[in-house]
């Protein structure tokens, strides 16, 4: 167990140290989400009638959930690269804790996700986003974001090990995650969608997490959304983390 923790930290450090040296990655964490916020707020925003009045208030929790879900993409691409460049073979020939390569990656994602949250929240506040929440509720929202992002990192870890190339990880990832994020309450009220999409959107975990965020940050009705968001995140984690570790042992075994 002690080895698992220390090996995980070594791998997490490895993945974070390289960040400042890969400017394209850093752009993905900073400029790209800001661009999305500005596009949605000013291009689509005028045409969308948001419940509660302010579209920016409505948008920020949604776009942050979308962004955090994509945060794990680095893990999919990075793991896939490690497999192809033989680094996974090196790691597996070392007497290190087996899950540490994946646990370290996903832990590094938590750090980069935190960075994204800070960048997005700052952008939001500059363009007029206002909290209707206590400090505790704001922090609870950040907690849900990070937990949901962490769970999705494990989905991406599995994806990175399953696909044959970083390009494939990219396209499969987008095909899987884009509909999930767009057919949800992230950008528009679910009630405006045609019935089939609406039905999907209502059970979509993204909708639940976004609604939880809105409940915590801008005072929308809470119902049980925050708890359901936590449960969804834990369910994704409990399913995908063991699957990814299983696949890691097998992938490297080919």
């Amino acid at each position, binding site marked *: 167990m002690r080895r698992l923790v*220390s*090996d995980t930290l070594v791998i997490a450090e*490895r993945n974070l140290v390289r960040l400042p040296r890969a400017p394209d990655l850093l752009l993905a964490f900073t400029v790209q989400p800001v661009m999305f916020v500005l596009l949605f707020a000013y291009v689509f925003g005028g045409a969308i009638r948001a419940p509660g009045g302010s579209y920016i208030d409505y948008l920020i929790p949604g776009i942050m959930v979308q962004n955090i879900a994509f945060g794990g993409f680095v893990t999919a691409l990075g793991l896939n690269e490690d497999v192809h*460049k033989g680094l996974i073979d*090196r790691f*597996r020939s*070392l*007497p290190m804790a087996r899950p540490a390569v994946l646990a370290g990656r996903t832990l590094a994602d938590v750090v980069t996700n935190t960075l994204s949250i800070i960048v997005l929240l700052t952008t939001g506040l500059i363009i007029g986003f206002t909290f209707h929440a206590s400090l505790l509720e704001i922090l609870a929202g950040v907690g849900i974001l990070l937990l949901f992002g962490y769970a999705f990192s494990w989905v991406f870890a599995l994806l990175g090990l399953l696909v044959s190339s970083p390009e494939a990880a990219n396209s499969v990832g987008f095909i899987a995650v884009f509909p999930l994020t767009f057919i949800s309450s992230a950008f528009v009220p679910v009630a405006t969608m045609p019935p089939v999409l609406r039905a999907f959107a209502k059970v979509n975990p993204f909708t639940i997490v976004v609604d939880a965020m809105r409940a915590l940050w801008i005072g929308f009705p809470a119902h049980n959304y925050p708890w359901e968001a936590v449960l969804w995140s834990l369910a994704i984690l409990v399913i995908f983390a063991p699957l990814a570790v299983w696949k890691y042992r097998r992938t490297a075994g*080919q």
Partner: protein
Amino acid sequence: MASRSSPPSTLPVTRPGAGSGDGDAAIVVTGLEKSFGDVRALAGVDLSAQRGTVLGLLGPNGAGKTTVVRVLTTLLKPDAGTIRVVGLDAVHDAAALRHRIGLAGQYAAVDENLTGLENLTMVGRLYGERRPRAKQRGQELLERFDLTEAASRAVKTYSGGMRRRLDLAAALVAKPEVLFLDEPTTGLDPRSRLALWETIEELVADGTTVLLTTQYLDEADRLADTIAVIDHGLVIAEGTPDHLKDRVGGERLEVRLDDERDADKAVAALESISDDRPAVEGALVKLSVRRRAGAIVEAVRRLDEAGVGVDDLVLRRPTLDDVFLSLTGHAAEDAISEEEAA
């Protein structure tokens, strides 16, 4: 039993089984089998290597060399057979074995975005060392591999030879008793190749046992104490390089004649210095000669005496193709590629 001193291990691991029953063998493999789906990558491989020696696995792409390395380094589980490395079972004692072996390969498995020193420090820490010691060991290795100047540069700025040296350094972080090198010089320029050979020779002189896979006969010839030739997942020949070359025949001498009508005269002139009857393909006469020294001079003298005009004359060493041709009767290329098999 010879009291050969084995290299000190950095880690306080006891050595169950070492020296018990295996004599001085560092690697003993019997009946190793491995299939990927329908493809039989290894069909019953037997190998052994004494401590402090180099075992060369020679074979074309897809012969099963890499699969052998992956099973012996605990990356793959075998379907059948027993594998003992430094007295440890590669399946049941895999965790303990990983402390005592090093792996370097054709991919140069280092992180491009980290510096050389960061790479080695990371590997040291993953062996369970604390950061200061791992870093110190990393610096030692960088110095040894002539990478000190590049220590704090990201690996993506390294040349191919530098990467390969760093990869080898990473495999040596824990001072392994057995080093596995999977095609260590594939894709390297001749100078880097020679430098790497010298490094491997130093390691062996220090007592490290090396298992090396290669597609190049000259590499196996230079480094290996024993060569096992692998084809289609089986060891088809085993022995010292000299033993193997005797089976293959000597150097190849190829003479291109000015006029192909002189072929018969050329064959008659050269027959007595050739191991077997020279082969004729148009204006090209091919023969194998046991002794390299003086072969060209002798051939030219004889052809001149016979009045045969020579356009070109080449002496070349036997290649992997020649080995395969004489051992199996088929060329090396028709083997299925390992990538397809995996």
